Each structure stands twice: as structure tokens, then as C-alpha cells.
């Protein structure tokens, strides 16, 4: 079954012109010597020919007119690149990377690296008191800023939606 599938796949690649030069010459030899390959090639070639000559379907006569009537009510939206400022995206990316790096540096800075006696880091990690970090004023302040930013974005999103809805109405 796998050999059969492999043969078909190789033959389709050959028919599509996607075989390498080496593979092409191997297949050409097989087609001259192997009757099974020759017969399978004939089948696939016929399917390929039929697919190429299959006809296109046509929509109703009014199709084009309907589309033109619909677009007459519309305006072309400005290109996305004209209102998305790449500098803002880069700025946001850099801000978050700096925040993550800052937290990592702060976190590792809080760890007592000398407390380890047997030289394994896994035990050291188990000793970390996470509650200490989450009761820290700076962490709480960061969380608060994130919540405020989240609410600000949500408000922006909802007011945009409201404006769109009013426009449509």
C-alpha cells in the first residue's frame, strides 16, 4: 500500500514538473521498463488532463451588477499601514521586553545563591518564598499599572465599537 502511494506521489511530482533532474530520469526509465508504472502514469495523466480541462461555473447574470450596487455605498478603507505606526509597535515591544528582563534581574537578584550547600539548583528553587515577591510593593504597583492599562484598552475598544455602531445606524 505504501509503495503504491509512493509511486503515485512520485508520478504526480513528475507530472507537475516538481521532480529533480535525477528523479526525472529514474522515472523515465521506469516508465519504459515497468508496465505497472506505465499504466499508473497513464491513469494519473488522464485525471490531470481532465482536471485541467474542467469548466468554470458562472454566477447569475446580475452578479456583477449586484456587486457594483453594493460597493457604490462603500468607501475604500485606508490602508492598514497608514494608521498603524511601526514605531509604536516597536516601542510597545521594547517596553514589554524591558519589563520582563527587569523582573528576571530583580527576581534573580533576590535569590540567595550562597545558601546552596550541595551544589544542586533544584533544591535552591524549592526554597524560594514566592509569597515574598507577591507581597512586594513594586510587584503590586506593576500589577496595578497592568490592570489600569487593561481597563484603558477595553474602554478604547468599546468606544470604537460604539462609534462604528452609531455610524452604521
Amino acid at each position, binding site marked *: 500500500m505504501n509503495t503504491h*502511494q509512493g509511486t*503515485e*506521489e512520485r508520478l*504526480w511530482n513528475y507530472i*507537475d514538473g*516538481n521532480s529533480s533532474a535525477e528523479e526525472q530520469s529514474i522515472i523515465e526509465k521506469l516508465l519504459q521498463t515497468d508496465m505497472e508504472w506505465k*499504466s499508473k502514469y*497513464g*491513469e*494519473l495523466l*488522464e*485525471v490531470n488532463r*481532465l*482536471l*485541467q*480541462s*474542467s*469548466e*468554470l*461555473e*458562472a*454566477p*447569475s447574470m446580475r*452578479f*456583477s451588477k*449586484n*456587486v*457594483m450596487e*453594493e*460597493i*457604490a455605498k*462603500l468607501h*475604500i*478603507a*485606508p*490602508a*492598514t*499601514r*497608514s494608521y498603524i505606526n511601526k514605531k509604536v509597535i516597536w516601542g510597545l515591544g521594547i517596553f514589554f521586553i524591558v519589563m520582563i528582563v527587569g523582573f528576571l534581574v530583580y527576581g534573580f537578584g533576590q535569590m540567595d545563591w550562597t545558601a546552596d550547600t550541595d551544589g544542586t539548583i533544584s533544591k535552591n528553587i524549592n526554597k524560594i518564598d514566592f509569597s515574598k515577591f507577591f507581597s512586594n510593593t513594586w510587584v503590586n504597583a506593576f500589577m496595578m499599572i497592568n490592570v489600569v492599562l487593561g481597563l484603558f484598552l477595553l474602554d478604547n475598544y468599546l468606544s470604537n465599537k460604539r462609534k462604528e455602531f452609531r455610524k452604521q445606524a
Partner: protein
Amino acid sequence: MSTGLNDNEIISKVLSGEQQAYAELVNRYQNYVFTLVLRIVKNREDAEEVAQDVFIKAYKYLADFRGESKFTTWLYTIVNNTCISFLRKKKLDIHSLDNEKVFEMADNQDSGMRANMVEQKSKLAMVSNAIGMLGPDDAEIITLFYKAEQSLEEIAQILSVENNTAKVRLHRARTRLKEKMETHFAAEVKDLY
């Protein structure tokens, strides 16, 4: 009726405010878009509505077409996304190749198509009907490759997959199409080979 302008020239005219120039693009590609949509959604009425929606979306976002790919590749990406949304709304799982509903729908079509086949006795109708029996994914990739004149690289771009994935999907789709033809149109296929 044709203006003799290429796609990018027409798009420039539309973007500069000549809305009527868009009709040339609609006339040029309506059959391609409609065929592709019909083979995915499997229903003429729905296909008409979805294809219309595709051209309206393409017009609305025409300023986003940068000319880095062919206009048709960009247009067929809109077809793909619009059809996916449509099928999701219709609660059809288009990604499942073994999806029962798709095959049930194809089998239901089969009886009607068989009757049609008796009348038409045409090899081309047989291929068209066999494509209609395939799942939306298979029908789409076959149509993009054979009728929409898209290369494997362009198909990969339209479907947002790797080039090799597109190649494998096309191969599997053709295998399944051949199986459908051999199962449902055995007599006609016998004449073919």
C-alpha cells in the same frame, strides 16, 4: 468591453476614485471566484452570496493590496477566509477530513449527480461531480491549482501553510478525487483508462 489594462493598473484607477473601473475586475474574475466558492460551500445560492461578499470585501480593503503578489492570490486569500467564516457559521468542521457531515452532504449530492451524469455522459461533468463529492479543503486546493492558475507557493500563501504542506495536501486531494471517481463513476472511469 475589456479595457486591456492589467490588474494593477485597474486597481490604481479604482484607488484614485474611479469606482466603475472595479467592474472590470469583477467581470474578469467572477467565474474563478464563483467556481472556487461553489466547490467549497457546495450550494449555488450560498456560493453566489459568498462570492459577492468576497468582491465587496476586496473592494473595501483594496488599499491594503500592496502588489507584492498577484491580485488573484490576494483575492483567493479573501475567498479562503470568507468561506471559512461562512462554513463556521454553518457549523461545518472544514478541517476534519473525516467529517461525517461533509461526506453525508456529498453522498446526498451523489444521487442527484448520478441522475445528472446519465444525462450528460460527459467526462468533464464526471470530474466536476467528483470534485463536488470531496471535502471543502480538497475541492479548494484542486480548484486553486487547476482552475485558478495558482502555483504551489501561491496556494501555500493563500492557505497560510508551508509549501511542502500545500504539496502534500494537493497530492492527497488528487488521490481522494481519483478514489471518488473510481467508486462512484466506475463505468466511466473504465472507459477513461
